[in-house]
């Protein structure tokens, strides 16, 4: 109990002092997880729509892959990206290993199936008659997609929250492809693991509190967005 108290005190002190390193770590956390989530939205939502609406051979198989991918362990994503980006790997010449870009790649792999899977479920859940109705009213293909996306926005925002939550909380991939390098690839989760292994539990608790607050803040903004326009 005493330790938790010390952690909260340390967290407040660190926040109050505006510690430059802490600010940098927090900003990098937002930047990496945010970029990975944005990329996964750009790819995942159209992909989810496609899989929900289109009918083609192998569709069910693809959906099963996406659904399985929703459980991708971050360390597996980290390992795959490591194998690709190591100097001995096929993309070693890009020199991306141990950079935030590598972390974004790995987190994108984690977030993409989450966003796609949720989007697919959300769009798929809409009444199929809605499509016919919209088309009957003379909407174009793109207008149809846009209306369906609007209709499914509760699920789609859940997809975004799920994707973001999946990447901001992972530590395995970030450690493997980022290397937890001070000032370059250290994020809140990897810093927390490191502080625990250094025996600095108070700093680790402080970092956890900041991370939880950050997750809540972003989720709150997205929830506001999601719940807006709901009938009271």
């Amino acid at each position, binding site marked *: 109990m005493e330790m938790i108290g010390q952690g909260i005190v340390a967290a407040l002190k660190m926040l109050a002092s505006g510690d430059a390193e802490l600010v940098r770590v927090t900003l990098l956390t*937002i*930047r*990496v997880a945010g970029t990975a989530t944005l990329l996964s939205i750009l790819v995942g939502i159209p992909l989810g729509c496609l899989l929900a609406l289109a009918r083609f051979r192998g569709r069910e198989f693809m959906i099963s892959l996406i659904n399985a991918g929703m459980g991708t362990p971050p360390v597996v994503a980290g390992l795959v990206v490591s194998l690709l980006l190591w*100097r001995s790997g096929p993309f070693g010449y*890009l020199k991306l290993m141990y950079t*935030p870009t590598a972390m974004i790649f790995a987190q994108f792999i984690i977030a993409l199936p989450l966003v796609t899977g949720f989007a697919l479920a959300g769009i798929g859940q809409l009444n199929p008659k809605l499509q016919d109705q919209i088309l009957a009213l003379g909407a174009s293909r793109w207008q149809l997609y846009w209306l369906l996306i609007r209709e499914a926005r509760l699920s789609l925002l859940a997809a975004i929250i799920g994707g973001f939550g999946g990447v901001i909380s992972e530590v395995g991939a970030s450690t493997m492809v980022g290397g937890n*390098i*001070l000032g370059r690839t250290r994020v809140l989760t990897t810093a927390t693991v490191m502080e625990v292994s*250094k025996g600095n539990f108070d700093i680790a608790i402080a970092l956890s509190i900041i991370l939880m607050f950050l997750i809540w803040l972003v989720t709150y903004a997205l929830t506001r967005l999601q719940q807006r326009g709901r009938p009271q």
Partner: protein
Amino acid sequence: MKRLHRFVVLAAIMALIVGCSGQQASTDPQPGQPQQEQQTGQPSSQPEAPAEPEAPAEPEEPAAPENPEVILATTTSTVDTGLLDVLVPMFEERTGYIVKTISVGTGQALKLGENGEADVLLVHAPESEKPLVESGAVINRQLVMHNDYVIIGPPDDPAGVKGTATAAEGLKKIAEAEAIFISRGDDSGTHKKERSLWAAAGVEPGGQWYQETGQGMGATINVANEKLGYTLSDRGTYLAHKKNIDLEVVLEGDTPLLNIYHVMQVNPEKWPMVNGEGAAAFVDFMLEDEVQEIIRTFGVDKYGEPLFFPDGGKTEEELLGG
């Protein structure tokens, strides 16, 4: 109006992310650019138009070396004790190199070196390092410093390790009493040392009482502390954790418990991507008088005793003999 609100919130999130990347003074090579950079050997200090949010402007580095990036693969103990937090920024400031410190177990660090994935190694498993020197995977291997391992255990010492003269004898007592022993189990330098001590004791450890964590030293000490078991730790990490744990030193001072750190370059002739110049600069830096003096006094203010003893310029034989 509703749509406008939605737009504002989305725009705010975007701005936050983009804003973060703007403030990040990172030096990542940009996708598409690095290959060219590598061939022309130019440091990427020209301003480039950021194509993506994660591509920030490059900082201006005075007299930057041709290939500024050095990957240092090292053991957890040099990082967890905070030693490299002092030395690496000093090296970067003095030479203009950018060090990427990857803190892993010595086994993995050696593997990264053997595959050319790192440029310079700072490790502590002399017996495992020698084959790499012989095979030509690493060059310029230099003794940097030493400290020692200690066996720590519960204060009531159920196996009666206190008072035994050698580490081998102490371990034998633990095995006989089947007292809980927590092993790193991760092929790190400490784990390699532990295996050699068991071999010296003539015991093949196994069974309920012998447990492997597969984690770093700090995490392993925490497990040993919760389970009230014994473990082998480097003194530095033990001192860093001393304030949190009940375990205490039950055996120390035996010659096989010496923990010897070497720095070495990965052979750039074997792997063209290895930054030989940067690695050589780091090796030289570690052996400088000023750096050796920092090593000598590091940790005294915090723990009341030094964590490492500098050995720059000595040979391993001199160290073991003296």
